[in-house]
């Protein structure tokens, strides 16, 4: 019987350390599948963040670098400028990319660095204990917004995909989600497209992936997926915000 | 032999490149040389100065704090640095823009109407090289020929057409300086 599903080659055999129900594992797999489908594993260099995905170098079966908090796009820039024919990606959470690393992501995009960023947005800090993220929703309770995020004192959620889509060097910008099998499939297509854009040498590509954090949201895995669909998607609409002019739009 | 020369003037008077010219000429004659600018806000339109050290032995400190020679292209430079010149030294100033003030009993003070001579040559911007020429003629510290040769080092390719005017400035200044006093340095 033909095999229709298997662990991608671009993932190691090491079991993920992520909490039960966390969607990091799914997103890792989608990235690895894209690397496999494009047959670039042996020339891929990944850069992992500080945050829950800090150990991503244990899971991706390609050369990996662990970067300082927020600096993955700068590190990736260094790699790519030395080795322009390699495939270079960063994998970053919302604290890493949208708080401490805002300058690095904006300017990597502005320079049109030929790298791909996978931006995992779960609206909360996971590893440090459930604090407010730049993408935390208004009213959402976190350990540093115990009464819910208040616009007056803590501002409003940052829409990263929309923001980056205003930058000319960002050639491909999309937002996807992984809260249903259908969305997982669409997310995989977007991630693959982002890598294809890098391979075509057109510029910077980024996919924002809406993700869950059952542990810090205080929800069961199933409730978390539902919460994402009902609460995050209306604030962070899915879709392609910027595509290379010649490319056909895809559903997200 | 160790000579420390301070060149000072307004930004735009060519003080920095004249200092480099002297350093290059010294280098071509086999001397140890160092050139050091003032920098910072002064670089942007105010007074500018640079120090040049020429020596037949290795230069310890390249900083010119007790100059034997001052080339002062404007009044503020004269007033600021004339008192720093060591006994036995020489001050050459641009008499078109500097009124000699103060007493410098053990220093030879020479006014050179560099602006007028530069205008006669046809380019007021070569005035600093008139005074450098006067210093070279006065001191014999290096040859005029070396200074002329060094114009190629200092002027970028697209400004090489200025070499004849600068050459004339150096040579006329040197002729003036050779009749002007004793050797220094």
């Amino acid at each position, binding site marked *: 019987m033909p095999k229709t599903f298997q662990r991608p080659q671009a993932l190691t055999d090491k079991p993920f350390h992520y909490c039960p129900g966390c969607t990091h594992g799914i997103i890792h797999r989608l990235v690895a599948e894209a690397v496999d489908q494009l047959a670039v594993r042996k020339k891929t*260099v990944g850069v992992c963040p500080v945050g829950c995905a800090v150990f991503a170098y244990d899971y991706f079966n390609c*050369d990996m*670098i662990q970067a*300082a908090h927020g*600096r993955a796009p*700068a*590190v990736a820039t260094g790699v790519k400028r030395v080795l322009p024919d390699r495939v270079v990606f960063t994998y970053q959470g919302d604290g890493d990319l949208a708080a401490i690393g805002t300058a*690095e992501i904006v300017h990597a995009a502005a320079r049109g660095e030929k790298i791909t960023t996978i931006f995992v947005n779960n609206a909360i800090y996971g590893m440090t204990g459930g604090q407010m993220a730049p993408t935390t929703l208004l009213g959402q309770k976190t350990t540093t917004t115990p009464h819910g995020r208040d616009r007056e004192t803590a501002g409003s959620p940052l829409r990263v995909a929309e923001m980056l889509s205003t930058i000319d060097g960002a050639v491909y910008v999309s937002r996807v989600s992984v809260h249903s099998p259908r969305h997982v499939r669409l997310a995989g297509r977007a991630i693959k497209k982002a890598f294809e854009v890098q391979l075509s040498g057109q510029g910077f590509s980024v996919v924002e992936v809406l993700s869950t954090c059952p542990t810090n949201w205080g929800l069961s895995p199933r409730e978390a997926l539902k919460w994402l669909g009902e609460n995050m998607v209306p604030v962070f609409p899915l879709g392609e915000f910027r595509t290379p002019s010649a490319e056909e739009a895809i559903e997200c | 032999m160790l000579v420390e020369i301070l060149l000072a003037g307004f930004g735009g008077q060519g003080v920095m490149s004249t200092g480099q010219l002297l350093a290059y000429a010294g280098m071509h004659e086999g001397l140890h040389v160092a050139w050091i600018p003032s920098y910072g806000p002064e670089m942007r339109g105010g007074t500018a100065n640079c120090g040049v050290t020429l020596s037949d032995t290795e230069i*310890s400190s*390249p900083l010119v704090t007790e100059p034997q020679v001052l080339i002062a292209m404007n009044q503020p430079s004269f007033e600021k640095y004339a008192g720093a010149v060591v006994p036995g030294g020489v001050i050459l100033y641009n008499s078109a823009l500097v009124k000699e003030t103060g007493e410098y009993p053990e220093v030879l003070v020479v006014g050179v109407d560099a602006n007028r001579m530069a205008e006669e040559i046809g380019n007021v911007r070569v005035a600093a090289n008139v005074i450098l020429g006067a210093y070279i003629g006065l001191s014999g510290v290096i040859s005029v020929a070396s200074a002329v040769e060094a114009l190629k080092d200092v002027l970028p390719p697209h400004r090489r057409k200025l070499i004849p005017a600068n050459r004339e400035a150096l040579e006329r200044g040197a002729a003036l300086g050779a009749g002007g006093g004793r050797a220094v340095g």
Partner: protein
Amino acid sequence: MSHLPRVLMKGNEAFGEGAVRAGCRHTFAYPITPQSELAHFLARRLPEIGGVFVQAESEVSAINMVFGAAAAGARVLTSSSSPGISLMQEGISYIAGARLPCVIVNVMRGGPGLGNIAPAQGDYFQAVKGGGHGDYCQIVLAPASVPEIIEMMILAFDLADRYRNPVMVVGDGVLGQMMEPVEIEPGETRTAPAKPWATDGQGDRPAPNIISSLNIVPEDNERFNLDLAVMYAEIRRGEQRCEEYRLDDAELVLVAFGTVARVAKAVVDRARRDGIRAGVIRPITLWPFPEDSVKRAAARADRFLVVEMSLGQMVEDVRLSVEGEKPVHFFGRPGGLVPTVREVCNEVKRITGVMPGAEDVPAATGVDR
């Protein structure tokens, strides 16, 4: 005199020229005075020889680009001046923790804070005592002339690769801005050694490479730190460098680095004319500090005078090396001023008692260290 043609070169350009001769083809930097000519030089020069200059959005980003380029196996440079170097400290710690080679130039200026753009040496502690977090050391080289800048840059890249460790080359505004003759080399450059550890894509290697400074298990991290300690000890034994000037019969030893060391040499020449037997130890490596040379001098000399463009930082390392055997005096001009030959001479006369009544005159800085 050499037969190679010579040009006058600015110190800041010499940092760049030295990097190019060392085989460095990648530079990431953010503009700051007084080292901008270095960036200007490399922004023009590197693309001519197939290299890359990237103007980063900040020093934070620049040092992390350096991290990436070093991880990819390149000989890589960044340069800045004091405030920018402060911003890089986190990245330098990561680079040391990830065992990556790179070269960082610091053309020091007056501080603290925004301070000014005048020459200073107030970043000595930051450079030699860590700067960033954690138990790490970086090799620190301190050239004192434009030709030596080129020499030290080549050495810096070699040492960085030999030890897989960051190397900082420190200068000051004077050194960066001054021009001295350098020989034009016929374009020959070094090449970096093979780096089988680099994250340059797995290619034919049997397994992927990982570059990380994360050792989450304390026992693992202790082992890593102890391995570092072994390497640091090796560097301390083998890489101390200094210039000794008129030291053989010196009763008074001046210790100074960079621009100030040149002032110190001029002071020694003048002091000897006045009958004071003085000499200079000029540390070329600030870390490892040339303690062996200082210790040897301490056995012979009567006293030391450390001269710095700071409130007194290297003087602590001199005292640690002298181990209380002899008095160690200090003279400094902090905040962006260069000690003059005359004022250091006066200080020499004051502490040696040659100038009558001079013992009562306070040091110009009024700093008691």
